């Protein structure tokens, strides 16, 4: 499997914070060699990898023992440089619910927190996610994408920001 970046991917994400969705961590361990190379490239590019508590919690859910819980948490912490606090986001969440309208019925709390975090920090941060339908381009700006090829198909990740 391989991660295929458009030629301008690294220049677009340079010096930015890249907010990672749960799907990145799932694919990260499932395709660890390719993602190790990708994360190394990003760190070298001065892209700051971050996530939020809701994503971490989603990843930790279902841990069967305390040891496995700790391993999962360490895995996330080995990738990101910080976990941004998800406080003072309520106004942004309410604004997003209004903008999504009826479509907000399908959103998870994590999606709302991710969107509200993008709103909070504006052009300084972008989101990397495989859940493309949850971040429509009438609300968020898709600034680039990447493809992850594997034996049974291709996953496309979008990079979104809020402007």
């Amino acid at each position: 499997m391989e991660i295929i970046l458009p030629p301008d991917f690294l220049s677009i994400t340079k010096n930015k914070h890249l907010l990672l969705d749960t799907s990145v961590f799932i694919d990260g361990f499932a395709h660890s060699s390719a993602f190790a190379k990708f994360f190394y490239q990003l760190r070298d590019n001065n892209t700051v990898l971050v996530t939020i508590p809701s994503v971490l919690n989603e990843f930790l859910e279902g841990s069967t023992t305390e040891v496995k819980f700790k391993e999962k948490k360490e895995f996330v912490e080995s990738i990101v440089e910080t976990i941004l606090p998800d406080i003072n986001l309520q106004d942004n969440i309410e604004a997003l619910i209004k903008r999504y309208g009826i479509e907000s019925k399908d959103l998870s709390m994590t999606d709302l927190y991710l969107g509200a975090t993008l709103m909070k920090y504006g052009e300084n941060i972008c989101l990397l996610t495989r859940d493309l339908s949850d971040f429509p381009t009438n609300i968020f700006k898709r600034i680039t994408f990447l493809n992850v090829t594997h034996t049974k198909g291709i996953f496309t990740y979008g990079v979104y920001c809020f402007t």
Partner: protein
Amino acid sequence: MSNKLPIIKRKKKFDVKKFMALAKKVKKSFKEENEYLKNKKDGNNSSSGFLIDY
């Protein structure tokens, strides 16, 4: 107007060795969790098993 991102102390280079070792462990844990979920789902939707609701 957007807020400023918190200033963080940058980490050193990405630790590939540590990441790969943890990925292996986490993959095993998720496999177990998925098996649990699959069994739970199969049990709930059983049409010919023992879970017959009279």
